[in-house]
């Protein structure tokens, strides 16, 4: 190990311990378990800084945080699945004694042995870890894929196809149309005004139409069709730009959250 690495590691350990002691002292009187609380806040700050250190370059502190994240989150989702699905939904359908043990309410309709099927399929899925009989895990996999296909067929047809098309047919003169005279006498460019509403509805209707033209590849994009396709590209470009801006702002708000944690909860500077 290089001398610099050892010095940095020693400095990190000393800072960690100092922070732990100071935070525990700050929590004394506020919390019963102030030593543990001090450790947790210090550890969370350490993990935040360890992940941020990747901005400089890949380093052992980032790798530590990354590996810890993988292990802890895998176990977290396993536990959540066990308690929310297996215990809450499966156990009361299969065994009264187990339901009593886990203190979950028994079902009014009684036991349902049909629910042994997913347990058997689930156990078969675990056979994937075996090289010799791993192929049996295709059966539960087929069940999962089949359920996804069957559910998505209807769900997407309803929500992503029919509903989206029906929502596109909006009144192009606006909902509160009171005639051409009233329209011109109330003409302004306020965000909630009738003109803006009308333009919005036109943009939505033509935008969806032209966007779909762009995605239609069975005909050459020439003439009127080509013009529609070009407008479709413009609409899609605005969409990508807006999505990009929205995503960046979401990430920045997360960053603000972490910086607030560091300066308020950990360092108590703000």
């Amino acid at each position, binding site marked *: 190990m290089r001398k610099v690495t050892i010095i940095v590691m020693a400095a990190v350990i000393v800072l960690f311990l100092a922070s732990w002691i100071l935070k525990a002292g700050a929590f004394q009187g506020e919390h019963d378990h102030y030593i543990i609380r001090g450790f947790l806040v210090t550890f969370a700050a350490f993990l935040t800084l360890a992940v941020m250190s990747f901005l400089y370059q890949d380093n052992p502190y980032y790798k530590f945080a990354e590996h810890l994240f993988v292990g802890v989150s895998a176990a977290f989702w396993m536990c959540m699945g066990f308690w929310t699905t297996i215990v809450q939904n499966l156990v009361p359908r299969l065994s009264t004694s187990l339901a009593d043990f886990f203190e979950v309410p028994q079902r009014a309709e009684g036991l349902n042995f049909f629910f042994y099927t997913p347990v058997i*399929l689930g156990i078969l*899925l675990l056979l994937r870890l075996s090289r010799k009989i791993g192929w049996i895990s295709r059966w539960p996999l087929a069940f999962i894929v089949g359920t996804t296909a069957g559910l998505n067929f209807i769900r997407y047809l309803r929500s992503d196809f029919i509903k989206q098309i029906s929502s596109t047919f909006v009144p192009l003169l606006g909902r509160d149309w009171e005639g051409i005279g009233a329209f011109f006498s109330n003409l302004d460019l306020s965000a909630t005004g009738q003109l803006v509403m009308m333009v919005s509805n036109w*943009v939505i209707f033509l935008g969806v139409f032209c966007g779909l033209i762009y995605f239609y590849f069975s005909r050459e994009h020439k003439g009127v069709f080509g013009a529609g396709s070009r407008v479709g590209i413009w609409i899609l470009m605005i969409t990508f730009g807006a999505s990009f801006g929205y995503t960046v702002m979401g990430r920045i708000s997360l960053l603000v959250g972490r910086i607030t944690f560091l300066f308020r909860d950990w360092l108590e500077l703000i």
Partner: protein
Amino acid sequence: MRRAIPLTILAVVGTVLIVSVFLPPLENLGEDFTLFFDIIAVFAFFLGGGNLVRIHFNKLWRKRKDWGFSIVTLFGFFFMLVIGLLKIGNPGGIGADPTAEGSWFQETFNYVINPLQSTMYALLAFFVASASYRAFRAKNREATLLLLAAFIILLGRTPFGVMLTAWVPESWSIAQIPNLAVWIMNSPNLAGQRAIIIGIGLGVVSMSLRLILGIERSYLGEDRG
């Protein structure tokens, strides 16, 4: 056996779920199958966990590069698994909500998973900003539109954007940057998203049909046995 049974299972399950929407007596079957899916998915989580342990034990055993970090993964995994499954420190005991306030499981989520997860995502802000600085060039009309939309959305969600156009009168309020940002999100962005969503919907429906009819078989893997 290796291909015929999974193909049959998929076809039957998929068809039953589609038919159950049209036949009220089969409606419960559809709900049961959805629950079956959730239960098998939990076993899939366990499979994923088992695989993670196997890979990291293997790395540790063979002392491969960065094997020391595998200890961190395994320690984190088993620590979380034990406190989560045994509900250690949960004030409500075995019958309580696993995420009850004060339980070790919830504290580990609050002070380990949450900071790691949000910092990982926050890190993307830097990479996206640096990538967009290099990639975004108003070279043509399309690129300019993308750039402008992104710029207005970013500006519209900051106090600076509000301040910049606060002088614009109410009768022209659409020209105020925050209002313009909202309009872009609710009109052209909605239209574009909708066109994409309709395309995705059609894609999912056709893929579901291909799976149920046994045309799409890639999920079975490469083994042709």
